[in-house]
């Protein structure tokens, strides 16, 4: 074995152990994230239950089309992320880079659409504490709906931004040929995180955009 042959980190016996540890670590981290978002979604649903009618009226001003487009974008990005991992397992180095680049692009596209949505929300006077007007039909706690809308989508966007940074780091790794069919755990770990952020949107989208529309 040449001197430059990759070796596992010194606290591990082999790459298999290192990979297992990395994945378990990410799963445990995701468990904490579930509780973090869980606290928020729980609070939201408590108020949704208390003020169903007011939240439904306020929620109809959420931009359903933009939210739906973003849901499609994120779901697609999870597919491209998984394809990058598949490519690593098959040792197709250029395909890894291609799929990762596409994932990053879709991530930025989501943030762009989200940013545009925030602009339209601002013009719509539904940004609490910044630009908020009680519209005709809005009841007392309508502002609460928008508070939760901005907190939830904002924290989600921060998570996605971190995800984009992580995928960019994976692209650097890939360019240096760090992923082999023997060891591509970092890619899998970032993929887990990416899918988690995607999953969060699958809970936020119906909660914020769909409920009470019928």
């Amino acid at each position, binding site marked *: 074995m040449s001197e430059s042959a990759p070796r596992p980190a*010194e*606290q591990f016996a082999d790459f298999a*152990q290192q990979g*297992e*540890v990395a994945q*378990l*670590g990410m799963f*445990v*981290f995701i*468990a*904490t*994230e579930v*509780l*973090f*978002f*869980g*606290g*928020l979604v*729980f*609070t939201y649903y*408590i*108020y949704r239950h*208390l*003020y169903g009618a*007011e939240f439904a009226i306020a929620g109809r001003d959420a931009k359903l089309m933009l939210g739906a487009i973003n849901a499609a974008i994120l779901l697609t990005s999870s597919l491209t992320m998984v394809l990058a991992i598949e490519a690593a397992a098959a040792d197709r180095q250029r395909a890894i880079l291609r799929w990762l680049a596409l994932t990053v692009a879709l991530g930025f596209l989501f943030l762009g659409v989200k940013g545009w949505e925030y602009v339209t929300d601002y013009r719509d006077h539904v940004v*609490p*504490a910044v630009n908020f007007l009680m519209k005709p039909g809005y009841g*007392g*706690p309508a*502002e*609460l709906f928008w*508070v939760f809308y901005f*907190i939830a989508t904002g924290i989600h966007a921060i998570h996605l931004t971190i995800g984009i940074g992580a995928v960019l780091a994976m692209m650097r790794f890939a360019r240096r040929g760090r992923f082999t069919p023997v060891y591509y755990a970092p890619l899998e770990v970032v993929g887990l995180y990416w899918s988690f952020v995607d999953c969060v949107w699958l809970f936020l989208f119906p909660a914020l955009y769909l409920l009470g529309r019928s």
Partner: protein
Amino acid sequence: MTTLTADLPASYLTKEQTIASWLLTTDHKRIALLYFASITAFFFIGGFAATLIRLHLVNPAGTLLQPDMYNRMFTMHGIVMVWFFLIPSIPNTLGNFLVPLMIGAKDLAFPRINLASWYVFNLAGLFVLYFLFMGGVDTGWTFYTPLSTHYANGYVVAAAVAVFINGFSSIMTGLNFVVTIHRMRAPGMVWMRLPLFIWAIYATSAVMLLATPVLAMTLFLVGVERTAGVGIFDPALGGDPLLFQHMFWFYSHPAVYIMILPAMGVVSELIACFARKPIFGYAGMTYALMAIAVIGFFVWGHHMFTAGISIYSAVVFSLMSFVVAVPSAIKTFNWTVTLHKGRITFDAPMLYALGFVGLFTIGGVTGLIVATVALDIHLQDTYFVVAHFHYIMVGGTVSAYFGGLHYWWPKITGRLYSEMLARFAALLTFLGFNLTFFPQFILGYLGMPRRYYAYPPEWQVWHVLSSAGASILAVAYVLPLFYLGWSLFRGERAGANPWRATGLEWRTSSPPPAHNFARAPLVTSAPYAYNPEDGSAIAQDGAHV
């Protein structure tokens, strides 16, 4: 006596001596010492606030501190002691040092995350110092709304940010421990051979991981409400202040178990070693630890009996609180039975451990009293509650922390301390603690509310007793600084296993080398294979010690 110490490289302390080699270290043992330095500083900051509180309360009219400053002092005491001392105390110092050693690993699973957690912890600490020197916070450590969101005039957001950031360090540490314990155990170290300290750290980490994020979200929402003026918990704008209490206690009750479970782990190690007996009911002890961790998530409502929750949920939370007493009692009985017919020696760590058992029992039984809805109506927010939780957190956790520190000090530093002074400090802790907090049970029963800066003169005698006890306690806590510090330079060399204990951590040199063991240990026996007949023992790798 055979050891695994042959041909060991330099110890982790002497391997490199530069400042950078400490500040950039990924060695779990060095990070444990970095944490030790940080939390010791915070222990004395929090202790200073407590000293002022106790001095102030000597006089019924409360003349030492202005009312507002008094509020800021007890808030400071609570925030610093809970998040910057008690929660990280045992896990981040002893846990960091011992988890890899006890399971026979070279290091934690994520050494760099471990180092990062220390920096994150200190960043949070900087926010604490910031709001401390800017004038403090007056909400109490509980940040209750609408006080914290509307009426408090201190640096609430800075304090919330401090606790929020501190949570990241908790989560990083807990994650590291869970993954390490799952995946890094030495060959033969099956789950039912793990030392109880490891089980305790595992249960603690699970609670840290699942509770801390909820606190983070709760404090985030408080911060948003206070800065943006929106009504998340404000009833005038449709919010629900009780919801804040539910979410806060969903973290903060399990947080009590984050503090006490590691202490239980330490005490199990100490009692088995100094009674020279296998721990009684090992399997039951592991189930009890996990049961406390799980049931502890379903008792938070007992903090809210008088806050306006329905009587039905109050009864359920009361019942669940009784249920959590069962595994706690199992542990206490098992420690006691372990002592029975043991070859007991009263070394300093054992004195701390025995002190723990007594004080934890009093804290636990008074916990049942305040968990009873009818009694709690009288006792809620009185000194009875203050005394109860100090018996658990200070009498329990801090005693165990000091016991563990003394027990593993020879392993950490390679030196022995003055046994006589250490025993004296242990006894002084027990006496000072009881004198400080037992009068508070009586005060609370008589109706003295917590957080009041003045009180009727007829209660003065109890307050004076309590403050006198606090001064004894202060001496007992400062004393180890001197003789432990002295031992670093003049202490006798400890040898690999001064207590003739069975854990793998004693099978390497004191202090251990950088990657802990000369070769990976092979575990062949259960922990605590002590023989009370002649005091001998078989270490977990099968060696006679």
